[in-house]
């Protein structure tokens, strides 16, 4: 039994309220004040703070009360190998996306609350309280920024004339655990930038996957390529982007359809025809320098 458009709009409205009232003020108040108080997660650049945990439990509690039948997957309660995303409605939540920004007080941390049904993102809310930007959408209902419909200016999409979000990420070792993701990413960045390669107009990096997805949704950025992030980093933004006419495909070549927990994505803006999105994606893939591998 699928959720109706009206039900989804109602969920979207409640998530906006939760993000604005319960989460935003806490993020705003605590940003830049946790410098001495972070745990080192997998390695010392993947930073998680006590505030992340607190915010996640606030969101979890509120959503469990509102939607007791829905499942909940959050960054802080995720257990490797154990947490699965099924077909039933599931909230996928990053309490604070852009934790490094949060710690450093760089104004690109946000909360990201998404909902998937049958594995497809159907509702998404991303709120950056520092810039006071509330992005929200639900399937069939359009995408909005602070209540105003997001309309991407119609224009050509060409790889060479594009500005693309590329992040440093926190996985930084060559060949660790048999992967060479770091090397592949760096080589791909080189290919995209070089005058011998795609020679794109520019790359941008703001340190938050959710904010990047939203900036692709509005058309400020043409695309965002990422490997290593998680379902909760992209789920909400994915719904916002597709409602604004954009698409999400795999970060590795020829993966036209990927699940929300693929961990490797290429997001492309709307404001242009489907064939031009398709040729942009194919052009981009030709510069990917190897196969990124991640585990869920």
């Amino acid at each position, binding site marked *: 039994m699928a959720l109706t458009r009206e039900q989804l709009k109602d969920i979207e409205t409640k998530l906006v309220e939760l993000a604005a009232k319960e989460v935003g003020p806490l993020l705003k108040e605590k940003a830049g*004040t946790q410098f001495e108080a972070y745990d080192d997660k997998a390695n010392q*650049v993947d930073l998680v703070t006590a505030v992340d945990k607190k915010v996640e439990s606030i969101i979890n509690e509120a959503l469990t009360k509102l939607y007791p039948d829905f499942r909940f997957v959050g960054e802080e309660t995720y257990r490797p190998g154990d947490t699965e995303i099924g077909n039933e409605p599931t909230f996928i939540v990053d309490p604070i996306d852009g934790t490094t920004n949060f710690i450093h007080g760089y104004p690109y941390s946000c909360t990201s609350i998404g909902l998937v049904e049958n594995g497809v993102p159907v509702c998404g809310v991303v709120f950056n309280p520092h810039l006071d930007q509330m992005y929200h959408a639900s399937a069939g209902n359009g995408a909005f920024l602070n209540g105003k419909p997001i309309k991407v200016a119609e224009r050509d999409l060409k790889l060479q004339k594009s500005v693309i979000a590329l992040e440093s990420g926190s996985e930084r070792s060559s060949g660790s655990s048999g992967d060479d993701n*770091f090397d592949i990413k760096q080589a791909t*960045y080189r290919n995209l930038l070089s005058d011998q390669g795609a020679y794109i*107009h*520019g790359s*941008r990096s703001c340190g938050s996957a959710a904010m990047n997805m939203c900036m692709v949704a509005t058309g400020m950025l043409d695309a965002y390529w990422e490997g290593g992030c998680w379902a909760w980093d992209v789920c909400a933004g994915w719904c916002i982007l597709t409602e604004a006419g954009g698409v999400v495909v795999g970060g590795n070549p020829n993966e036209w359809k990927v699940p929300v927990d693929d961990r490797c994505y290429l997001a492309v803006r709307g404001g242009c025809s489907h064939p031009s999105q398709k040729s942009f994606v194919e052009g981009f893939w030709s510069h990917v320098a190897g196969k990124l591998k991640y585990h869920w």
Partner: protein
Amino acid sequence: MPISLPEMLAIEQFLCSLAREHVGPIIKAKSGTQHTYDAKSGSRAVDIVTAIDKQVEKLIWTEVRQKYPTFKFVGEESYVPGQTTITDDPTFIIDPIDGTTNFIHDFPFSCTSLGLTVNKRPVVGVIYNPHLDLLVSASEGNGVRVNEQDFDFQSKRQSMGPLSLAKSVVALQPGSAREGPNFKTKIQTYENLLSCDGGFVHGFRNLGSSAMTMAYICLGYLDSYWDGGCYAWDVCAGWCILKETGGTVVGANPGEWEVAVDNRTYLAVRGCENKREQEDYIKRFWECVKGRLEYK
């Protein structure tokens, strides 16, 4: 003849109102609307300039000449390679629109950057981003203002924790020169800064505007900025503001403790409680530089 502190403040205020009232509205209105632009070198080139850049520079030049007829003027669009020099005379050094690629793509980090040097030293700096409505300004000896209110950098600095390379967020921009040895040096240095075997910084950020990057360091959002290929007008205003917050600008290549405003390679580092920390940070950073950036 030296300029007194009150005179310096008056120049700052004049540039602030010029930026906010005359230049800002044009940048904001025209951002994302310029689909015809010149590539400075060839059709695929990524160093682009629009008619608006030229129009805005002319407006600034007219205004400052009327008010300060004896001061010299160096602007990005009127600069003549090999001819334009910066002397000891009071000289306005301005970039009408910094972040031209952002301006064309409507990525909200284009700004105007207005600086003044005396004896080749940046002594007044005004940076205005109309998209964020953010005005950051300073003059030598007069401190820093954000949106024309005094900015208490002292408290910000105290809350920021120690400055060390592995705990820092660094701004890195590939820029528009994407060929030859300089591009190679940049890419190798980025990899080295990120790698767990190298600097292993918390992350990099890329805003696509030197002036906005300098402003963000002044506000305490970023720890440092390393670049080569930019010009005096990209850094002059930010340099003055940064100095007022206790920050410093040195060369991008190891050992360059003292550089001129038109050096074209720079490492800008935020202020911190202990001057020694800043020195150690710079030395440690330079150890990660692989190769040498050279510009004529």
